[in-house]
């Protein structure tokens, strides 16, 4: 018997195969035991990996649930194009929960300064109620942030979508408790045990296509609070901010008004893997304005029903 994956031992598996097997198991548990699951798909790299795992988990059957995008309206056009194309290739239904619609309907009000970060949560919860979803797959990883480090794979949420860190269900072995009463739901994080590097290595291994902004490209940018922000219709520089052209890429893809780029020359996945292996900043620390409000920003948002 020869080693299957070059790791040197008979019947051993590489870390990527182990993580993939665990994530597939989690997805199948949800579909077997929950009534109405959906998968949060933003066109970002973590949700792309998650969608690939969903494709594998049910093959040769199609993915047996719709995907949903909470659309802040502040998008990178390349990401929306990619989202629509990928969904069409897979033949899955796309539900768009639009923050703009919710503003127009008066469900939420834009914060001063135009940030739509906090108002995503009521829009998400509104869609969960409308479609009666009882399980929502999210691409969050425990290495991202310390509130996430303590969250379960099956994260119970009450009728208001709230996470109660003091009242989590014990989670042992690979036995997940998805039981809910009407109106309650479970947020499920199949990539909980993946790190940013694992995600990139998996993208390389699976040759997954990503929106082009993940690779180094020239872009008009300006600096705000030390972060490199793109000039887009939703994120214009203020008077004192100087616009210049730089070679950048994105480590995460979120709301264009809040997500910063990093200087990079990496134009292939391999080059990105090499960069990620030696990087000294967390991906949220480097690029996410939404986590900078306070040390406990993520914890607070999760308690309100955020992913």
């Amino acid at each position, binding site marked *: 018997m020869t080693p299957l994956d070059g790791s040197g031992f008979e*019947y051993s598996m590489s870390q990527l195969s182990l993580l993939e097997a665990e994530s597939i198991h989690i997805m199948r548990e949800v579909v077997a035991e929950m009534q109405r699951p959906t998968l949060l798909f933003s066109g970002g790299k973590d949700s792309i990996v998650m969608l690939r795992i969903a494709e*594998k988990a049910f*093959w*040769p059957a*199609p993915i047996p649930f719709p995907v949903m995008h909470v659309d802040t309206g502040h998008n990178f056009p390349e990401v929306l194009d990619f989202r629509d194309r990928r969904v069409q290739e897979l033949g899955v239904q796309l539900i768009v929960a639009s923050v703009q619609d919710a503003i127009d309907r008066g469900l939420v009000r834009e914060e001063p300064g135009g940030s739509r970060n906090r108002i995503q949560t009521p829009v998400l919860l509104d869609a969960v109620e409308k479609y009666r979803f009882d399980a929502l797959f999210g691409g969050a990883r425990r290495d991202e942030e310390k509130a996430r480090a303590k969250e379960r794979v099956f994260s119970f949420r009450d009728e208001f979508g709230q996470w109660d860190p003091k009242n*989590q269900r014990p989670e042992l*072995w690979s036995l997940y408790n998805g*039981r809910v009463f009407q109106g309650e739901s479970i947020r499920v994080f199949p990539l909980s045990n993946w790190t940013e590097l694992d995600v990139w290595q998996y993208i390389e291994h699976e040759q997954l296509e990503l929106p082009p902004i993940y690779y180094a490209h020239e872009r008009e940018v300006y600096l705000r609070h030390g972060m490199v922000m793109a000039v887009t219709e939703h994120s214009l520089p203020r008077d004192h901010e100087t616009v210049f052209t730089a070679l950048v890429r994105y480590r995460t893809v979120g709301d264009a008004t809040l997500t910063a780029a990093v200087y990079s020359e990496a134009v292939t996945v391999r080059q990105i893997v090499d960069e990620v292996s030696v990087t000294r900043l967390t991906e949220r620390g480097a690029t996410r304005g939404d986590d900078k409000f306070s040390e406990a920003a993520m914890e607070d948002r999760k308690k309100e029903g955020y992913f």
Partner: protein
Amino acid sequence: MDLLRFATAGSVDDGKSTLIGRLLYDSKAIFEDQLEAVEKTSRDRGDEYTNLALLTDGLRAEREQGITIDVAYRYFATPKRKFIIADTPGHIQYTRNMVTGASTADLAVILVDARNGLVEQSRRHAFLTTLLRVPHLVLAVNKMDLVDYSEEVFESIRSEFAAFATKLNVPDLTFIPMSALNGDNIVTRSDAMPWYDGPSLLHHLENVHVASDRNLVDVRFPVQYVVRPQSTQYHDYRGYAGQVAGGVLKAGDEVVVLPSGFSTTIAGIDTADGPVEEAFPPMSVTIRLADNLDVSRGDLICRPNNQPMVTQDVDAMVCWMDSASALRPGQKLAIKHTTRNARALVKDLQYRLDVNTLHRDEAADELGLNEIGRVRLRTTQPLFADPYGRNRTTGGFILIDESTNRTVAAGMITTAE
């Protein structure tokens, strides 16, 4: 690169957070922005040095209320291995957290303070590690710098623990003297303890052989989900998806499906990346059978001459994890075992175990939060089970309170009849 999952256990001031901070820092898993936050907090608190323990500091909800919220998972990698640490807090609700963290661990690191030697908690940690059948145990004798790196101190703790461990059936036990604060014997061998000729902790974590810990003998495939594509291309496709819980399955193998008992052969083992010749734990695959049988979620595929127990009467060690209720004979609960859901009646509480002294209290009439005891259950449907010591997947279960939907207990099957 492979993967090692390990749990860390220790009492409040034995330096566990510093040890984890040190491992993350020295393996460069700490990022500059995280370190900056810690340096700032250290300065604000007036610490003399950067307090690496703060790297594992918890949520604001915990700091505000002075409580610790169960297990935190942390990640680092070396060129050899990826590591997942289940970091279990030291005091409140200790048993519940340690049982949770140990349930998936390949290895446990138990810290003791060299100045104090073994304390009651060290014995409890060791007991829980063996109850959960963690295959490898490291006793980390920390704070050696505070006992002048004395070989005598280390040897005395080692022999005392080794004597205790003989009662516990520890499969693989390693002792490492260290100072997490100074980095002695954490990543590299320390010059301060020339009398120690064993590995550093990281070297041990990188090299301990865990692939052979899995059960490759008893074929166990709990059916998780039936794949039926309903498409013209795969019109007649019917596959049984699941994660292998034991043994090695091959196409052409004769198998039995439980509970029906029908025999058939494996027609093929599929994955989205193409068929595979063999499947072994913990691979997630889809199995096709040669005959058209009625197979559904919760069934189990095994070999004709090596079958699990098929039983509705289960003896198990149970750890109660709910603060709002207690386990009592006569109680009815939901049980989740592999992919099978049933209901269970608590027939009998045989004894409650004192995890510090291992004394069995046979007069006990209930199990409260963090208490462990031996129970007998009667289930509404047969379970396909192995003793937990033989297979952690087919031997473990959880109990759920149907009125609250909370997970209230973890169980490890001892025998069944």
